[in-house]
């Protein structure tokens, strides 16, 4: 056995390139798995701590029925009296802004949470501290009796705005400017995470005074008596509260918000996990590939060992041992690389979600898991070649073969491949499965499709050679056609390499295709959403009359007021919080337009309907997700009671991830008693300049309002960036896949060259120049690249369609498939360039082989 190990280590060190490639393959696979899972975990962890921390021990939340405006604090007594309630804690929310807080960027609210602006909570310090963790990092907490306007701020917010302890500063609220004194800072945990840290607390009375809402509160947080929060008991209390408090308020579970966020993330993660799975799969491929090659390369050597008495078990063990060594070292390094990768991915996710992700200690479970996966996959991948090695007969050492023995899978696998292809195509086409199994099945189908494509490669090699012959001759000369012949001498190897390329290319196509299809719709909407030239948003809602002020400027042609609020939609099953966009249809259509999903709809009629009131447009996302159509009615909770809104049209709208309806500003004020607005879309006159107009608006209204003004072009650019970032994860995986494919090509061609040393020597003896040698090898690589690219493009297009479908089914984003022409070219070019670059090294090595060495090579 000792001898076996010695031979193994020798074999690893003499085949340094191969060992290194295999090592890299394992490393990349493990790194990808680890990084993705770690990042996912961080994201989940952040979201849960965020919601747990801010919700504290709260079991139920009481809001005003319409989810807007507050209610009388008299209810508090009723709540406390309700049986089962242990504590009832009032909160008043006071949107505010620092005068110096001049964000130049409008909040983009379609990807992650809409962090919104700074918010002050008016609380009763003693009560609140009982149910939530206020960890004071500096200074002290609010004092219960204090009548001074003391404030405790989240520390990051205070640092960011350079506010020091004891400092007095002013904030702008809807009712004017107020002076506050900073007495304490909240650590970044528990309640300090509220509103992603743009948060502070003041005394409830002070808050009421500042907002001129004496006697009013926005929310009551309820803690029930049995702290096990037995769900039945909770439901009972909820029920009791509901009956007791009547229609004015609604009782909610605080977990709801977190769920929405997790749901959104999980869609994204399914995609990532799927990609990680594929990355692992190609990783395994590469390993299998590398080991098979080692076996081929060592056939004679192993045959010799057999002939001097090594048993076939010993030979197999030797190969498995080699796999074990590589697996362990590759997996360990991969975990390290994965750690680095996850740092990058996590900061990327943070960017996307709009707040810092928690990065805790290294998750031991995931670490061990991914290392184990790496090692196990390596062992499995080396096991088959090991068995093959064990079967080498001692005679093998003496035999010379033009092609290797091929397994039945290579010879007859194509029939299975075709069956798989047909079957998965049929499944995709008919799609007989319910919604929830759809995606899982979808990934299974993708896998079947992939396997099918792979199995069909070996029998099609001849055809590929024939088709490409003329082109190859043109590019690489006569010897190119001799080179490509070699692809079918080891069809297994060729197949594996093509498949690796296929995966890489298809990932490029999928990423680009998805982004393309996604951005086409998104940009159409962005265009309307940020209609006109300038986007003016008020940090604190302002009067509608500001429209006249804006239009009074000579450079402004028209301005359209818009107001977003959250409303509660009562659908048959549950209460769903959605955004309500109130517009003034007349001025809105002057500045921008609605994008109706149904092109045949009479847009004038729809807009007229909207003006009439009690009418809304729903987003295509809502329409698809809940099967809503024009003519249907939506029951929405209003200020007084509930009210039906008639759907007039379906429009493209991704605000708040598409959970949005559009109605009129007049409805907003009659039904929801909201008269102020927070956004103006501005169209400037033809000969005005955007930047100058922005400056003018700032300078004219700076003193009166807190405005954030941005040109539409820059909003759109940022949206574009955000989008691309969302897909960077996929890009990273794509790059890993392409790298793995490159390693595969390098591996295959090195092997091919090595095997053919004598042939190359012979050709050189006959007068083949070095350049011709290189071209011959490059031709071989080029055909590999072309096969991989074409199959990869086809596969990628199919995958894009499946993903789009799945996404539509899951989230309601229904997107039109747009042929990603650029991605197709990119995939083709990447495959060709990668295969040529990877082939260059073996090609040069081949050309450098001295003729005589080649002839003597045994």
């Amino acid at each position: 056995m000792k001898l076996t190990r010695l031979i193994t280590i020798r074999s690893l060190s003499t085949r340094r390139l191969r060992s290194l490639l295999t090592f890299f393959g394992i490393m990349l696979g493990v790194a990808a798995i680890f990084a993705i899972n770690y990042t996912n975990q961080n994201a989940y962890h952040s979201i849960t701590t965020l919601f747990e921390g801010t919700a504290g021990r709260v079991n139920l939340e009481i809001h005003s029925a319409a989810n807007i405006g507050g209610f009388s604090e008299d209810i508090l007594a009723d709540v406390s009296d309700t049986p089962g309630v242990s504590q009832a804690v009032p909160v008043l929310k006071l949107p505010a802004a620092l005068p110096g807080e001049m964000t130049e960027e409008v909040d983009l609210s379609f990807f992650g949470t809409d962090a919104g602006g700074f918010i002050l909570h008016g609380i009763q310090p003693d009560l609140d501290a009982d149910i939530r963790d206020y960890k004071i990092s500096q200074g002290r907490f609010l004092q219960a009796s204090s009548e001074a306007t003391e404030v405790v701020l989240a520390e990051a917010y205070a640092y960011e705005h350079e506010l020091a302890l004891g400092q007095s500063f002013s904030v702008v609220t809807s009712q004017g400017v107020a002076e506050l004194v900073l007495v304490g800072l909240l650590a970044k945990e528990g309640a300090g995470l509220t509103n992603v840290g743009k948060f502070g607390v003041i005394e409830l009375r002070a808050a009421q005074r500042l907002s001129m809402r004496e006697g009013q509160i926005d929310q009551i947080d309820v803690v029930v008596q049995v702290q096990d929060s037995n769900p039945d008991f909770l439901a009972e209390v909820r029920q009791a509260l509901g009956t007791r408090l009547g229609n004015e308020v609604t009782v909610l579970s605080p977990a709801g918000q977190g769920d929405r966020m997790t749901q959104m993330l999980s869609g994204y993660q399914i995609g990532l996990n799927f990609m990680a799975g594929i990355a692992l799969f190609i990783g395994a491929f590469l390993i299998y590939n590398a080991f098979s090659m080692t076996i081929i390369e060592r056939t004679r050597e192993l045959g010799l060992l057999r002939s001097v008495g090594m048993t076939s078990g010993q030979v197999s063990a030797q190969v498995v041992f080699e796999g074990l060594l590589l697996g362990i070292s590759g997996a360990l390094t991969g975990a390290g690389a994965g750690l680095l990768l996850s740092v990058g991915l996590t900061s990327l996710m943070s960017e996307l979600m709009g707040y810092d992700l928690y990065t805790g200690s290294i998750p031991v479970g995931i670490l061990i898991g991914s290392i184990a996966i790496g090692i196990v996959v390596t062992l499995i991948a080396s096991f088959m070649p090991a068995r093959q090695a064990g079967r080498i007969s001692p005679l093998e050492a003496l035999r010379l073969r033009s092609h290797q023995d091929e397994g039945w899978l290579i010879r007859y696998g194509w029939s299975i491949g075709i069956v798989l292809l047909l079957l998965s195509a049929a499944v995709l086409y008919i799609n007989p499965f319910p919604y929830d199994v759809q995606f899982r099945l979808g990934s299974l189908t993708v896998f079947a499709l992939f396997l099918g494509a792979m199995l069909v490669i070996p029998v099609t090699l001849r055809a590929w050679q024939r088709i490409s012959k003329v082109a190859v001759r043109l590019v690489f000369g006569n010897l190119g056609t001799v080179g490509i012949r070699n692809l079918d001498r080891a069809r297994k190897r060729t197949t594996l390499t093509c498949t690796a390329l296929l995966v890489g290319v298809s990932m490029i196509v999928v990423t680009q295709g998805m982004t393309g299809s996604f951005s086409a719709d998104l940009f159409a909407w962005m265009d309307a959403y940020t209609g006109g030239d300038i986007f003016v948003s008020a940090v604190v809602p302002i009067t509608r009359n500001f429209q006249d002020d804006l239009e009074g400027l000579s450079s402004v042609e028209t301005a359209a007021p818009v107001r977003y609020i959250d409303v509660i939609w009562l659908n048959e099953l549950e209460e769903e919080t959605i955004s309500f966009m109130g517009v003034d249809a007349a001025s809105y259509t002057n500045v921008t337009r609605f994008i109706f999903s149904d092109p045949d709809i009479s847009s004038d009629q729809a807009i007229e309907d909207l003006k009439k009131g009690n009418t809304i447009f729903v987003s295509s996302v809502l329409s698809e997700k809940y099967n809503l159509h024009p003519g249907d009615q939506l029951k929405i909770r209003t200020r007084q009671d509930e009210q039906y809104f008639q759907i007039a049209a379906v429009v493209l709208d991704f605000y708040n991830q598409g959970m949005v309806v559009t109605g009129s500003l007049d409805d907003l004020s009659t039904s929801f008693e909201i008269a102020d607005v927070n956004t103006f879309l501005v169209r400037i006159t033809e000969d005005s300049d955007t930047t100058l107009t922005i400056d003018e608006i700032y300078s004219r209204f700076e003193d009166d309002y807190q405005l954030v003004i941005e040109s539409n072009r820059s909003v759109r650019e940022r949206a574009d960036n955000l989008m691309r970032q969302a897909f960077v994860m996929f890009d990273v995986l794509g790059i890993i896949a392409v790298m793995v494919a490159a390693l595969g090509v390098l591996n295959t061609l090195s092997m091919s060259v090595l095997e053919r040393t004598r042939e190359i020597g012979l050709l050189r003896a006959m007068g083949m120049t070095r350049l011709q040698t290189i071209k011959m090898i490059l031709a071989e690589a080029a055909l590999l690249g072309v096969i991989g690219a074409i199959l990869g493009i086809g596969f990628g297009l199919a995958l894009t369609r499946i993903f789009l479908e799945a996404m539509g089914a899951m989230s309601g984003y229904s997107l039109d498939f747009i042929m990603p022409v650029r991605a197709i070219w990119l995939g083709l070019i990447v495959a060709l360039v990668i295969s040529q670059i990877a082939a260059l090294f073996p090609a040069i090595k081949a050309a450098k082989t001295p003729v005589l060495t080649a002839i003597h090579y045994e």
Partner: protein
Amino acid sequence: MAVLYTQDLHKQYVLGQHIVKALKGVSLSVSQGEFVGIMGPSGSGKSTLLHLLGGLDQPTSGDIHLADRNISTLSDHQATLVRRRNVGFVFQFFNLLPTLSAEENILLPLIIDGKNLKNYQEALNDILKKLGMENRRHHKPDQLSGGEQQRVALARALITQPAVLLADEPTGNLDSRSGTDMMLLLQRSARQFNQAIIMVTHDPKAAAYTDRVVFLKDGLIADEISFSADDKQPDRLHGIMATQERLER
């Protein structure tokens, strides 16, 4: 007229601290249409000499003239082009590319030279016919016997009608019948195409088909016998074996 001649050819291999003197001053001249055999004990430098003659390697000192060119100091690229146009090789083993058919293997030198293969169909058919390989033209090497493989190799060496044909133990692994066929073919093509053929062999029977046998020993020409066309095979064989025996003593 000599198409190939060498002057005081030396070849040394440096192996670490060892210097192996494979050739120690060989002067040889071969005329057009001449069929020369090279014999000698194992390690005497036969293959080394053949490789130098074909421009596969460079001598340590001395000159080699092939088709009016001194090829002893050519760059790799130039040597490659000289080989391509002027030299044909037949090796003992492994002469064919396993992925190509017999016919394609034969055409290989033309493919390498970027020739239009259509112009060579007649020559190809001619050679295949001569070698009795017409119905084997589409076979892959692993579907051919050893003798057939060597015939294909010979056909390939002949297709460009090179001035010099070099063969290193071409009959090494053939049975005596195939070996004899091969010798007759070589003999014929030397006459017909006016080629200089130099063949390394261990087999006195094969050497008996040549015009002249050069004996190498320890990197030097130890002896040489020439035959006239009238010499009978047994006499030739006898002469060769006698010389071999004398040199071994």
